């Protein structure tokens, strides 16, 4: 039997169980093994990784005390990672509105992101997204944004793989403090990006029944990288 591809889900804190359930519903599930990653030994078995939503400073702190921070920094250089919400922050090169004294990041995507772009829990919302990079792009995707980050800048250098926009938000939904008077709302309305092996979404696809983002990550980032 062909060896199954192992997709790990970083399970230190946050919505990891929901990602596992979503992966196990994919049509390609027979080719996948899902693994909740809590230790460096777990991570060593993985071909790809999902960093779930949760709270980014908490996940980074727990990764540090579990001895996972350096192994994750090595992993990001060679294997595909998808970060959702807090995971998207960890995948970014730079973060604004960070913890006092800075916070640990993995890098991997050449962007600057702001934590809690919309504010606290009561500013959380759901909104239909235009999903130009997914299957059935004519069908919008219900984006669940919980204390979500906002993408502020894309800054790929000439050696970096290009950044592709996979989904975007209607400009009218940007928080007033972030909306630009001249309506040049890019890249703040970008909510799903792909760069090389890596993928990020600032919202929570694992909290819906629509598995197109999981399908995209597995087909485009994981299986492509294995070939």
């Amino acid at each position, binding site marked *: 039997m062909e060896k199954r591809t192992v997709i790990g889900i970083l*399970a*230190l*804190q946050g919505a990891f169980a929901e990602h596992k359930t979503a992966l196990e519903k994919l049509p390609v599930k027979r080719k996948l093994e899902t693994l909740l990653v*809590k*230790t460096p030994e777990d991570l060593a078995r993985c071909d790809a990784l999902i960093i779930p939503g949760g*709270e*980014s*400073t*908490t996940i980074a702190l*727990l990764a540090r*005390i*579990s001895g996972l921070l350096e192994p994750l920094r090595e992993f990001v250089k060679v294997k595909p990672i998808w970060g959702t919400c807090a995971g998207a922050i960890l995948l970014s090169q730079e973060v604004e509105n960070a*913890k006092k004294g800075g*916070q640990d990041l993995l890098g991997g995507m050449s962007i600057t992101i702001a*934590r809690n772009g919309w*504010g*606290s*829990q*009561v500013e959380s919302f759901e909104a239909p997204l235009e999903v130009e990079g997914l299957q059935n792009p004519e069908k919008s995707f219900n984006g669940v944004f919980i*204390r979500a980050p906002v993408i502020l800048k894309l800054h790929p250098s000439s050696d970096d793989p290009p950044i592709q926009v996979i989904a975007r938000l209607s400009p009218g939904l940007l928080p007033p403090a972030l909306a630009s008077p001249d309506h040049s709302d890019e890249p703040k309305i970008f909510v799903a990006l792909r760069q090389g092996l890596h993928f990020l979404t600032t919202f929570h696809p694992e909290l819906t029944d629509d598995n197109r983002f999981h399908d995209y990550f597995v087909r485009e980032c994981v299986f492509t990288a294995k070939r």
Partner: protein
Amino acid sequence: MSDPEMIKKIVDAVTIPVMAKVRIGHFVEAQILQAVGVDYIDESEVLTPADDEYHINKHPFKVPFVCGARDLGEALRRISEGAAMIRTKGEAGTGNVVEAVRHQRAVMGQIRQASVMNEEELYVFAKKIGAPFHLLKETARLKRLPVVNFAAGGIATPADAALMMQLGCDGVFVGSGIFHSGDPAKRARAIVQAVTHYNNHKILAEVSENIGPAMVGLSIDSNLKGGNYADRGH
């Protein structure tokens, strides 16, 4: 409810979400906390109840609520009022985990019973435990509560936290168990790791080492039947 100024200072000082308590039934305190911008509200029996009959109707609020429960019926009544999260009542401020264990075992045991019932049996069971039928049916289908379920009230050690996780909780609340211990920072860090690695016995052993004296476990009463706070709200 604590002074909103203090709550705002805490929100500014930390990066993580902040939860604050209101008295059972005190919907105006909840309106105030929502205006202050807390991330979650705990409608808590630990504060003296404002209303001895009615809980807050939580549906009109945008901020999510957590409520305590001792059994499945109580948990589903709170969810029906709009609670987005449930926790065991346990017995807060005692460092004694027995009530939290009792409440979690009661919830999980009743879910297991409901999960094998047919529809006629579920109607009668809903009446018996005072639960809305549609929520009981959904719980039976999911074989778990339809919302996240925390342990709270008496958790004092990393082992207590892992015990509650192995009994089926999704997370753990700890207050006095940390702040009344010998070395709060060390103990908090150890309990957090115990929740993450609740099934890894080797890591549980490591994090339980050298964390200073635990909060003294107060006995709740001589035969450990029922707590002082847990009886508030039904």
